[in-house]
């Protein structure tokens, strides 16, 4: 398995009064080439989990296998640089991390740091900016002149310019307006469908999980309680209730209609299909 957590535990501030187990004996595999959602309430360990993927955090116990490398506790993995080149991590609110005087310089910082030649880095960065929907007129502007959503795009372009195989996004749509968050999710879909990237998204938005993700990992108090494909996840009403997850609107409506004896197929997850199904049944 190319990405796998094997009995991983992580403790923050060990040996101090603030010691805290953020991950407890986590074993889970992440499928390459898919879009995986990581969900769970605040403090459940989502961010801690994904920060292991490029060895920003090292496990206190257990091991993490990432693309033929093994990350162990207390031992820095060899070839750390090439690991970080292959696993691109976008933090929460990455717009606060822009620091260069022009946008293009900021995007180029990553590739240059990884030893890419300047010309190549420039080409890649221009391309990355186009991919995130900012044309060349933005290149020489100051990042400070952009809106919050645009800044976030620049930060993501900075990761895309490194051209990682695995893209990890920690709450990438938090605080964006509906349109901004939709186009952000489409961008990640494109990275997966057209460029074959493995995408991991930490999110609270169940509509996004349903509409964009293939698989879902549920965390609770530092443990993985479930890993499954998204369709069967939203089919299991009992489980959703147990996990205290408010299902997407379409799922609740289907549930309510079925409670009234409609027997709608549980595979119906979008409004268009629901309407078609209902229309087909009108006598």
């Amino acid at each position: 398995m190319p990405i796998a957590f094997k009995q991983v535990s992580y403790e923050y501030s060990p040996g101090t009064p603030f010691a805290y187990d953020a991950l407890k004996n986590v074993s889970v595999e992440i499928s390459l080439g898919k879009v995986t959602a990581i969900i769970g309430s605040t403090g459940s360990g989502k961010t801690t989990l994904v920060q292991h993927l490029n060895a920003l955090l090292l496990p206190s116990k257990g091991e993490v296998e990432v693309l033929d490398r093994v990350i162990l506790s207390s031992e820095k993995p060899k070839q750390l640089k090439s690991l970080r080149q292959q696993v691109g991590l976008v933090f929460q609110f990455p717009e606060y991390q822009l620091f260069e005087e022009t946008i293009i310089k900021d995007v180029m910082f990553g590739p240059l740091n990884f030893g890419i030649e300047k010309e190549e880095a420039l080409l890649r960065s221009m391309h990355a900016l186009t991919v995130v929907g900012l044309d060349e007129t933005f290149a020489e502007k100051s990042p400070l002149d952009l809106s919050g959503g645009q800044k976030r795009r620049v930060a993501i372009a900075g990761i895309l310019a490194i051209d990682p195989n695995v893209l990890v996004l920690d709450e990438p749509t938090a605080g964006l307006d509906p349109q901004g968050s939709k186009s952000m999710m489409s961008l990640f879909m494109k990275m997966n469908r057209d460029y074959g990237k493995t995408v991991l998204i930490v999110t609270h938005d169940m509509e996004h999980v349903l509409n964009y993700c293939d698989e879902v990992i549920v965390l609770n108090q530092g443990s993985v309680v479930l890993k499954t494909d998204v369709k069967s996840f939203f089919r299991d009403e009992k489980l959703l209730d147990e996990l205290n997850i408010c299902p997407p609107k379409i799922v609740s409506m289907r549930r309510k209609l079925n409670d009234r004896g409609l027997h709608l197929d549980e595979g119906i997850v979008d409004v268009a299909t629901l309407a078609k199904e209902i229309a087909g049944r009108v006598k």
Partner: protein
Amino acid sequence: MKQVEVKNLRFSYDDEVDAVKNVSFSVEKGTYTCIIGHNGSGKSTIAKLLIGLIDRNEGEIMIDGIVLTDKTIYDVRNKIGIVFQNPDNQFIGSTVKDDIAFGLENHQVDPAKMDEIIHHFAKEVNMIDYLENEPTRLSGGQKQRVAIAGVLAMRPDILILDEATSMLDPKGKEEVNALVDRIHEAHDMTIISITHDIEEVIKSDQVFVMNEGEIVMQGCPNDVLVHADKLIEMALDVPFTVKVALELKKYGIDVDMTMDMERMVEQLCQLPLSK
């Protein structure tokens, strides 16, 4: 009674493009108003103009019958409290208690009375057990509730929320929304909420839709939110039930554009369906 009255408001950040163009509206006392619009449509600019953080180029703002001018700005600000989007950007005190105290100290409230006021409002937002806590160790929802307590301690008549829940997780969002509803009811507080949360809009009394600095639609949610095509054109969200009604229309099935999920389910069950 009209508590907020805005006439022909115009504002430009750079003297080239108007961020707010000829906007007029009014808000009745004790009502819940939502302002929606995509990023950059001028929503937050309106909020900043109302509290005089930025100065209008043209037009008139009247709060509780007081015209906002350089001379009346502090009277106006006494009537309005505002909570911003990012919970981390509005903490001043090193403990929850200090943070709530900040506004009171600024208003030179008698220190002997301060403790009682702080306790009262910490209780109101359900943060009484956290008075000595450091803000950094609170969740986003808790931080926003403390921010609201700090604002309430100033006893405003109007509470403006500038995307106050958009950075919160579902639990935090629920906590803050429930608190705002409670304040709205209990104090007859006028609420003006800038939001992207369509569920919040549905339960409001009136909604303003902003696009490119103008209010392009206004009215009660039931009248405004059914114009799905216009909303989508402006990159805005449409209530789920409206999406269902629109899809059904394609098949020649007419149902009422209700905002209420239960009513929509009821309508669908009334159709002559084979089960």
